[in-house]
């Protein structure tokens, strides 16, 4: 009951933020970009909250539990990835957004490449990712709520469908009513909960064993040496591939880099990057702590083996955390999922209302604030239904969302916004190749040689295609203001 009470308080605060933001959302720019008024702390926390998703408290600890040290290669990319994203993506996007009044990534692509086809392909890639990512998040929220209700004695009364729509209803309410403004303010609230929970989880974890992590590491090492070797159980090739994908791939995540367009002052980018870095470092400690404690405890025979690695975090909370801390962490889990979900709802609505109509007909519909709200509702409903009907398929799609976005969008944005020879045909070819390789790799996994990470291969192939076509073509015509922006 304590856990459910914590969740109820969290939901009420989110709804209150949605109501407060509704009054300040007057047009589409307010709805999609929060009026371009964010300060560094709000933007930094919104970016951090959008990145972490349910991975922080579910997938991440599960990976540490299953693979040992391997996921660290994914986690230590925060510094390098943040620096690259700030240098290559944040500044040009923020400038272009102000120059052209742009509110979305496909619009920025159209402005840079003068190509509605490239913009349409970007829109479809984002939409595909939105449905898969959002479906996975919605399903995760429903599943966790159902487990909690079951634990509190409400067995039989709450089906998965009811739980999905109940949890989805909260995020939908504040997203529709307050748009991006509600999204970033809830992100701030959610980020604070996540960081607080991370700190407490880490403090709890280091006291579980008398001598802290050193003893835990030795216990795991004695039973599974490979897990505690520098590359863990994933091996050297896999770890290197992750390192590349997660350090460079951040430059292509639309739900994250769109936040850069909302900054009030370009100079705040530096503070945003540092805040993200500090929050991300704390988050890594959570993943490491939970995964290591549970692995060592199971290895020592003090806890029964965990069948599903994703259950490592709930098992840790039930075994070692005070009920109030467990309540805060479960609220943080919902916060992590919701903060990613609301970002996807927003960029998905922008694609439906503005980007696809503009790419197809050359203009955006009038009354776009009302349409934006309708589109947000439609995307949420479709994602919920898709998640409930397709089951495992959504989880699979959600898992490869990061690499799909990275392979399709990194060349177009991180490179193309700094290189005047980059062409629209190169952009289109690289998006198509990235989608074919990523989707093909997931559809036919047996065709992939062992040790090859499809996402990383797709990213490299996409970049090589983009560069080769740029060098092989005549330099394209670039609009004067965009060219001036590239020269700054």
């Amino acid at each position, binding site marked *: 009951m304590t856990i459910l009470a914590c969740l109820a308080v969290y939901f009420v605060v989110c709804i209150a933020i949605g109501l407060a933001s509704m009054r300040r959302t007057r047009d589409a720019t307010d709805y999609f970009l929060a009026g371009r008024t964010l300060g560094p702390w709000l933007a930094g926390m919104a970016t951090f909250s959008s990145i972490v998703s349910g991975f922080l408290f579910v997938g991440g600890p599960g990976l540490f539990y299953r693979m040992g040290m391997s996921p660290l290669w994914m986690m230590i990319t925060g510094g390098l990835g943040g*620096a690259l994203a700030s240098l290559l993506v944040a500044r040009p996007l923020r400038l272009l957004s102000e120059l052209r009044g742009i509110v979305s990534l496909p619009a920025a692509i159209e402005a840079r490449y003068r190509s509605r086809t490239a913009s349409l392909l970007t829109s479809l890639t984002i939409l595909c990712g939105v449905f898969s990512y959002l479906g996975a998040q919605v399903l995760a929220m429903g599943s966790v709520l159902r487990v909690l209700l079951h634990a509190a004695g409400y067995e039989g009364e709450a089906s998965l469908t009811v739980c999905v729509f109940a949890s989805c209803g909260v995020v939908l309410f504040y997203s529709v009513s307050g748009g991006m403004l509600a999204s970033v303010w809830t992100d701030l609230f959610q980020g604070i909960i996540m960081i607080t929970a991370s700190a407490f989880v880490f403090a709890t974890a280091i006291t579980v064993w008398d001598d802290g992590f050193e003893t835990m590491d030795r216990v795991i090492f004695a039973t599974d040496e490979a897990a505690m070797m520098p590359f863990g159980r994933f091996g050297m090739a896999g770890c290197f591939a992750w390192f590349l994908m997660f350090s460079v791939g951040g430059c292509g995540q639309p739900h994250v880099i769109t936040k850069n367009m909302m900054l009030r*002052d370009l100079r705040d980018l530096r503070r945003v990057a540092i805040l993200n870095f500090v929050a991300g470092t704390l988050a890594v400690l959570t993943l490491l702590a939970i995964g290591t404690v549970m692995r060592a405890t199971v290895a020592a025979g003090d806890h029964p083996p965990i069948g599903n690695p994703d259950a490592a975090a709930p098992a840790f909370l039930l075994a070692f955390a005070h009920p109030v801390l467990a309540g805060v962490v479960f609220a943080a889990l919902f916060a992590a999922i919701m903060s990613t979900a609301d970002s996807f709802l927003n960029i998905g609505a922008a694609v439906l209302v503005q980007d696809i109509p503009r790419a197809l007909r050359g203009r955006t519909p009038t009354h776009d604030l009302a349409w934006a709200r309708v589109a947000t509702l439609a995307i949420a409903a479709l994602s919920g239904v898709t998640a409930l009907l397709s089951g495992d398929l959504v989880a699979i799609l959600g898992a490869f969302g990061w690499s799909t976005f990275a392979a399709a969008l990194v060349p177009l944005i991180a490179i193309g916004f700094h290189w*005047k*020879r980059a062409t629209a045909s190169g952009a289109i070819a690289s998006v198509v190749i990235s989608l074919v390789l990523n989707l093909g790799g997931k559809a036919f996994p047996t065709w992939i040689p062992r040790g090859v990470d499809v996402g990383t291969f797709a990213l*490299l192939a996409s*970049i090589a295609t983009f560069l080769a076509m740029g060098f092989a073509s005549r330099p394209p015509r670039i609009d004067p203001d965009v060219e001036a922006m590239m020269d*700054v």
Partner: protein
Amino acid sequence: MATARTARDPILLALLVATLLLLAAMIAAAVRPGFAETCTYAALWVAGFEGFCAALFALGTARSQAAGRARVWILANAVQQALLLGVLVWLERNEIDGGFVFAYPKATAFFLYVFWPSQVLFLVFFAWPYRRWFHTDDDAARVATLLREHGVSRGEDA
């Protein structure tokens, strides 16, 4: 209208070479079982990855006053990565068990000597050269001029 050859072409050419090197390493690992566990693969990957990152950083700082300082950071990062990866590969190849530096098991040492130095390097990077990129009068003036020339009234913010 862009000129036939842009000033950043050499950077992009370096990026293309590094990308092809990484692709070649992955393809070689796919067609030759066991190659992905060799020091040759690690060396290929480190060379490709460092070239890749250096090109991206050079691209991002091409017109910045801090480009020289960024090069120092790139070099420091490359040396750190290469040394640490060399140590890790050496440990793997020689199957050295727990108790190497300061009697820590390898995982703890890895965390201490790979994770934290990377994080510290990042902080140094942002606290030192990067600060200049958004604070120099020259950069701020260029942005303000650009926005004013294109009729954006909030130019003074940037």
